């Protein structure tokens, strides 16, 4: 509320130079509270390069993290650095950042081409350069054929892609996508996922958030798990899984004869419990998910079991969070 005189505000690209050794994104013990509600607390994180998925339930603080990074919010504690610069004080680093907000409101009265080219000019491009750039990025996200239609008439997936296109203008080094897959149909999801994977292959630093593990899994293995505003885990998704191995997991198997399968499975020492919800369904409890999955195929093949479905109901974010926070629900 009180004006911050120290804010620089001028965004001259030629004056601003990123610190060469600084990580692209750096949070140092960052906290953000709204009144009494703590959205983020004590988050420390440094990222450079690659595609990183920020996982967390709704309200975990993913959007807050991004907004801190984009200088929309001022941290209540700690420091945020974008290419070594404080984004709250200086918007200059955005010359190298593309941001796709979660917000679904867009300028519906513009065409995607106008939308992208108008905002491209804020990077300091001329009218003609912006037009060319808009065509390039809209082609990249697969909207070239509809780019002269009003955004208001777009489907959800097309709107998301238009937002992504606007963020890709000026070829940024860092791309931040807040829930880019939310509300999209499967086809749009696949298209957007391909775009993100492609950006990762091009060597850009990509940050994307989601509350659906399987979505992130299809894009990247590098994840950050946020829970109730705290950093719960960082690193490779499979490595995190391994850590989870010695806590009980449930596996549901639908097969022709549940009892026969149960007899064979019981021979594995990693199995410590069984349940028969129906004659064709078997629930297996194990402490070592990885080992169990290694040995299960051999049992099925050797004994000629007729297996229709293998399901890991625990293998979603909710369960992982449950384990990581100590509860088994």
């Amino acid at each position: 509320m009180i004006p911050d005189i120290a804010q620089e505000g001028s965004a001259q690209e030629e004056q601003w130079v990123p610190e060469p050794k600084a990580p692209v994104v750096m949070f140092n013990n960052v906290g953000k509270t709204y009144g009494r509600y703590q959205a983020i607390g004590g988050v420390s994180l440094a990222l450079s390069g690659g595609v990183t998925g920020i996982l967390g339930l709704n309200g975990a603080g993913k959007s807050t993290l991004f907004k801190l990074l984009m200088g929309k919010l001022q941290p209540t504690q700690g420091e945020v650095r974008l290419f070594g610069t404080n984004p709250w004080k200086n918007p200059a680093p955005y010359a190298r950042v593309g941001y796709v907000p979660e917000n679904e409101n867009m300028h519906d009265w513009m065409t995607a081409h106008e939308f992208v080219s108008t905002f491209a000019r804020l990077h300091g491009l001329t009218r003609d350069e912006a037009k060319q750039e808009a065509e390039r990025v809209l082609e990249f996200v697969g909207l070239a054929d509809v780019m002269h239609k009003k955004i208001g008439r777009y489907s959800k997936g097309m709107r998301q892609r238009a937002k992504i296109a606007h963020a890709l203008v000026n070829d940024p080094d860092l791309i931040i996508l807040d829930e880019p897959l939310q509300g999209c149909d499967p086809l749009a999801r696949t298209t957007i996922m391909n775009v993100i994977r492609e950006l990762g292959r091009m060597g850009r630093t990509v940050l994307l958030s989601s509350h659906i593990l399987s979505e992130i899994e299809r894009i990247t293995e590098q994840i950050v798990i946020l829970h109730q505003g705290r950093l719960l885990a960082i690193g490779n998704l499979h490595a995190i899984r391994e850590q989870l191995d010695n806590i009980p997991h449930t596996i549901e198997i639908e097969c022709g004869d549940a009892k026969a399968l149960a007899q064979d499975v019981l021979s594995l020492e990693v199995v410590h419990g069984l349940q028969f919800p129906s004659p064709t369904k078997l629930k297996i409890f194990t402490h070592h998910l990885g080992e169990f999955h290694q040995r299960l195929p051999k049992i099925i093949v050797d004994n000629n079991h007729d297996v229709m479905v293998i399901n890991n109901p625990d293998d979603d974010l909710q369960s992982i969070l449950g384990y990581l926070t100590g509860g088994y629900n």
Partner: protein
Amino acid sequence: MGKKRGETIWTSLDRKATAIAEFTIRQYRTRISTWVVLGVGFLAISVVLLFYIDAMNTDIEAIDNDGDSYDWDGDGYVNGQEIKYGTDLNDAFSHPGLLNPPIEPEPASMYINEDDYDWDYSDASSITTGYDNDGDCANSSLLLSQQDGNGDGTPCNIILRYDSLNGGYIVFADPYVDEDPDEDRYGKEAQHRAFILGIGKLGFVFLLSIFIPLFLATGLIRDEMTSGTMQYMTAKPIARGEIFLYRMLGYLAIVWPYLIVVCSLLALVSGFMGPGDQFFRFGDLGVWFSILIAALLATLVYGMLFAFLGVLWKYGIILALPIAAWELGMALLSMSVPESSFLRMSIVGWSMSIIDSGAYLAWPDMAMFTQAGEWAGGSNQGDTFLMFGGNELPGYGALEWAQSDLGLGLGPYATTVVSVIVLLFQATFFWFIGQLIFKSKEIV
């Protein structure tokens, strides 16, 4: 971006600033509320214009200010004719018909508006004016000393003396001189000037310049912040102060042409419709120009102020309303007490100064002209020989209400320059505060 060949000043400007300004213009154009606000403003001005056109086409009823069209004694000869021939007004057996040779009675209409003003309004320095058109001063039975009531040595004239203490002129008139002015001639001119000043001050500087920014500028930044679309703009390498400024440029690019068009339209209509023998009243254009300048600056300052209030608080329009009420009070105050120091704490007061300066330059005779309306052939000075007629001339009241003197104690040019500088300073100040608040606002 490295410098490229063919880089001109325009292409270097034609990036962020024009991108946001164009974006803002197009955004306004797609909103129906913009057209409603501008349309209602035009409608309101047009209604007043219709009243003006109607007034210009309606003859003002002639009033016999000196009462000499009456026939008191009922002898068929009106008082004026009896005065001219020196017969008794109150005796039916004394009239010009009994003279030798007998005189035919003249119609009463010859004695209405028969002695109009002969004041040279265009020469503000002239102090001796007036001419006894109907000859009832010279031909009357008055002694020579009575014919020179103001004692300047010349009978049957009028002396105007400038009253430096209270401003304006004091009329010292010999009896029966310019005592029955033409209401229509004076009233049309007075109404015409009152219309221009009134619509300029209350129509343009108050109504349009406050309500258009109130509806169009308050949400300039705020609406985007509320809907979340500001996320796109603030994610680009551009300072928020620049966003504020360039959005403002877009707003001005809608509002200023609108004001120019409406103001020119009114200047044209009133120029052709206005009283006088000339084809077009070019002399009024200076006033219209000052009205336009005042309105352009007022919409700029109010725009900056209201956009700032919108940034300050989600319900910025609630903060803007008491300011609009204050400005209305100041607008009315500036028309009655232009030297009040309260006006220095307003936007409208400075804008009004510009219009008053324009009117002062375009109509240098204003002080004498209003005095003529108040004097009304002497009927407002309690002269004994005038028992009939109204008080002021028609149109005088409206003009007196609409016009005001220069309140700053400076000449017209200095007043204009000072007012323009103050208004520009106010705009810059509100922009500076506004962008400072905007920078410190979190965009959720």
